[in-house]
């Protein structure tokens, strides 16, 4: 862990201390890999477009967001042909730990050991049990969105299917897909079971730019 990296990460994270800017970051992050425009962020935050743009550009300067330009479809009238500035979260992850800790390196070593020893079944058991405990005493039998959001997944629901726009284990999952995605599935299954949401089923449903798990309503509430 080198000092320049630490300072870079610290500067990036420090950019989030402003409440409005942090809300702007969350508005972009919750869209997952879909780029978001200034108008959408302004509307989500209930602030003016100029203020939203100011904070979005500060987040780009800090390296937390990436900007791109694209013509947005469906626009007519003057200015419709002008490309809009769009924002998405930067792929680089930022972590600040004081004093220095290297839990990610430890996680990678543990994941490799699980893979080599073939201990996935035990990992799935442990993950399910952990999820069950974490889900107990949560929002109850209601909507799983809140439960999943509370655990960092950025759920986006459409009809009876919930996609998760954030993978809390992203980099580790990219390095050890079957081990970590399997762990994640068991964890989400445990969360749902712990919260008593037995009308919903988590399944492995891999797709680009989102978590490999989706949650589906498999029973009506009255069943």
């Amino acid at each position, binding site marked *: 862990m080198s000092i320049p990296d630490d300072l870079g990460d610290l500067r990036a994270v420090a950019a989030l201390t402003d409440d409005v800017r942090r809300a702007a970051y969350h508005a972009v992050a919750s869209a997952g890999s879909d780029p978001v425009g200034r108008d959408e962020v302004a509307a989500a935050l209930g602030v003016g477009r100029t203020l939203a743009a100011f904070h979005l550009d500060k987040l780009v300067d800090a390296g937390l967001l990436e900007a791109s330009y694209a013509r947005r479809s469906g626009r007519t009238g003057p200015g419709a042909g002008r490309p809009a500035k769009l924002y998405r979260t930067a792929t680089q992850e930022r972590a600040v730990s004081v004093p220095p800790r290297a839990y990610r390196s430890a996680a990678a070593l543990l994941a490799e050991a699980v893979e080599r020893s*073939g201990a*996935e079944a035990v990992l799935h058991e442990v993950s399910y049990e952990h999820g069950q405990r974490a889900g107990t005493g949560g929002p109850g039998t209601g909507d799983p969105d809140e439960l999943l959001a509370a655990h960092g997944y950025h759920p986006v629901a459409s009809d009876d299917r919930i996609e998760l726009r954030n993978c809390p284990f992203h980099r580790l999952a990219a390095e050890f897909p*079957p081990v970590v995605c399997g762990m994640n599935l068991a964890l989400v299954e445990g969360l749902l079971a712990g919260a008593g949401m037995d009308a919903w089923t988590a399944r*492995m449903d891999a797709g680009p730019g989102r978590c490999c798990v989706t949650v589906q309503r498999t029973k009506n509430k009255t069943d």
Partner: protein
Amino acid sequence: MTASHLAQFNVARLREPLDHPASAGFMAGMDPMNDLADRSPGFVWRLTEDGSDDATGIRPLDPDVIITLSVWESLEALRAYAYHSEHLDYLRRRREWFVPHGLPAALVLWWVPVGRTPTVDEALERLDLLGSAGPTPRAFTFRQPFPAPTEPAVLA
């Protein structure tokens, strides 16, 4: 335009023979997964046994070790099939059907010149090389990949 394609070789030690009930889940997924590979973007070739649509009869290491050997246009193409498709769930369940193989590496990747089909002997050498020397440009992994050579790969 790249002059190289990516070769992939994988070994797995069966818990039970393929006709045993414990292997039923693996057998049920095999044809759909092979079909998915065949129609995946960037798929080039996979090893099959004569008269069969799969390679499960080819056992160069041990009677209970099955192999897959395939060629893809790029690392990204193979990654998309292996980890961003229905195949991921099949992989997730692998311990239901396979035991740890006792080898230092189960999967090896390397670059081959476009149009050249890798052999099983060559694949076994690459797996040995990865096990003994760790990831190098001649034998590597998803976790530590190497770019395709700018000149057509020279096969030593």
